[in-house]
């Protein structure tokens, strides 16, 4: 059961190596759509181990998964704002917060996702689908440069990245609702 712990810790170490970290943060789309999600993946692996080790704690603080999900939505929404990316590059305390808060998101996700059950999962999924579409639109259509650290072309690339994710999520939804999994399982 220690395997997720090792994978998570190793990935975390790789992500904080200064050349890797600064390279990822030098390109807006990699910063937002690769580094940030990878930090959540770190938390997911660590979470698998921690939740396994201390189930009572998580049962006490996050019984039905809703508190965890609320925190997840709040933190991820915060990190989707253009300004927060800028501040992570400019102010060290924000950078530290990023490397703590996003693994925490992954950890909470590992505990909460199964707990919120199907309707909760669909709700969260559709919520992020419209949010990603919105962010894509925002980054593509903004008439001004949103970050001091990234040029407008980088901003537009990120916008297309969000649109790509949205399109992929729509494809996933379509196959999910139109393919009968019961037959496949049989």
């Amino acid at each position, binding site marked *: 059961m220690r395997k997720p712990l090792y994978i998570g810790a190793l990935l975390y170490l790789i992500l904080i190596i200064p050349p890797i970290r600064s390279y990822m943060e030098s390109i807006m789309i990699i910063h937002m759509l690769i580094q940030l999600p990878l930090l959540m993946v770190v938390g997911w692996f660590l979470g698998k181990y921690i939740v396994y080790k201390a189930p009572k704690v998580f049962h006490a603080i996050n019984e039905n998964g809703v508190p965890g999900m609320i925190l997840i939505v709040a933190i991820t929404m915060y990190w989707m704002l253009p300004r927060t990316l800028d501040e992570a590059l400019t102010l060290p305390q924000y950078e530290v917060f990023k490397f703590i808060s996003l693994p925490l998101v992954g950890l909470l996700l590992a505990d909460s996702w199964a707990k919120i059950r199907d309707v909760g999962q669909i709700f969260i999924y559709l919520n992020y689908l419209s949010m990603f579409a919105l962010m894509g639109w925002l980054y593509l259509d903004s008439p001004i440069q949103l970050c001091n650290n990234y040029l407008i072309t980088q901003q537009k690339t990120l916008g297309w990245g969000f649109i790509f994710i949205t399109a992929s999520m729509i494809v996933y939804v379509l196959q999910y609702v139109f393919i*009968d999994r019961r037959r496949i399982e049989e």
Partner: protein
Amino acid sequence: MGAFVGMNNLKSTNKTVATSLTIGGVIIAVMMIFGILMLLAQGGVIDVPDAMFYQFLTIHGTGMIGAAALAAAGVMWYFLNQYVELSRSIFNWFLGLVIIGVILVVIGVFSFEFAGAWTFLYPLPTISASAWGTIGALLYLFGMLILGTGFLLLYMDTGRAIIKKYGSLGKGLGWDVISGKKKEEDAPPKAVVASTMVTIVNTTAILAGAAVLIMNIINVINPSFTFDPMLAKNLTYAFGHIFANAIIYMAVIVVYELLPKYTNRKWVVNRVFLIAWTMSTAFTLVIYTHHMLMDFAMPKWMLIMGQALSYANGLPVLVVTAYGALMIVHKSGIKWDMGSGLAFLSMFGWTVGVVPAIVDATIVVNHVMHNTKWVPGHFHMYMGLGAVVMLFSFMYYLAKVDSTVKESKIDRIALWCYALAMISISVQFLVSGALSTPRRWAIHYPGWMTPAVFGAIAGVFLVIATTIFIIHFVRYMKNRGKLGSDKYEQKTA
């Protein structure tokens, strides 16, 4: 014991559904009063300040669509719940969120004077020429967002339940029957087919609506953030048109469920029926572009598609439903009462109501009729004489099967009064449109006033009739389940 528990569940289910119908019905009646006030103001009979006229316009549009959708969702939920396992707690959440949304909208409109119409077309919520401020716009937009969230929750539950029972939404639409993999006898019930269609189109609509609402909110908070207005308009109508259109597809379930019971005949689901519903699912998603026929920057193919598919969308489900209703009633010896009478009237309203829409969706006609009162003529007929009548039909049906409250002569008079009043209102809008009277104008030239006054007078009779319907339903709510719920339905089943 099991039967006892089942009956308790049924009773509380009926109560939940009846609550949505009561709220919806009362709001519809109140919104009618705002409609009368607007017509009286346009007819020069009363003096309503211009700013207030647009507040009335905003609340009338939002309230009518929201209330009809709320009540129609109750009808859909009631019948769908008989075939799949829906969550009552989610329906309660839906009701709660809708009520919160409505309260925010009402405060935004009346306390903070938001008057950007129910279409909240970007960038109008921000650029109001000081008619309203940031708070009013935000209350309205957040109210709509919360309302939409409530509906999204409901459709997620219906989608989940349909997939659980039938395997996929495609199978909910009967695609395996269409493709010949399953026999027609094994096709999903009509209520499931209609609910699947509504789940698909309204989930799409609400997601589009959520994106454009948040964009508007960002723009209201920080006006220097501007967005592509054409994309915003596309998303707004993708939301508004689909959501409004889906009301009738939810409400029509009552016709499918009622008429076979009343006529004691089977209304079979065949391939033609299923193909019609699949076609309407696809067309409903893409025909909103007929709202943009005057937007020269729109790609031409989208406008042509808007016209061609608007023609096509008016037909499949309507034809199979109206034809099916006629066939099932013809020489059946049906015993007419309020429930069956209203259900049949709604078929008439739906059929005649789409005709002006198809006329206006023709690009050359739209050049002349765009944004004239012809358009309200269409949707008042289609909604007022079609969708809303289906809701009243369900109210009488539920009262009949779930209580001992009897229909009286007054109810029957109210039915005729409602039908004539609603036809009069619709026709006065169509006549105004033919006179080139613009829609959404607080002030009319003298030559435009007569139809408006006529409509206002008809509106008074409409409110009286609607009030009689609602009083009957409230009487049912008070006497609900006293002699055991749904006894009549069990007898006739």
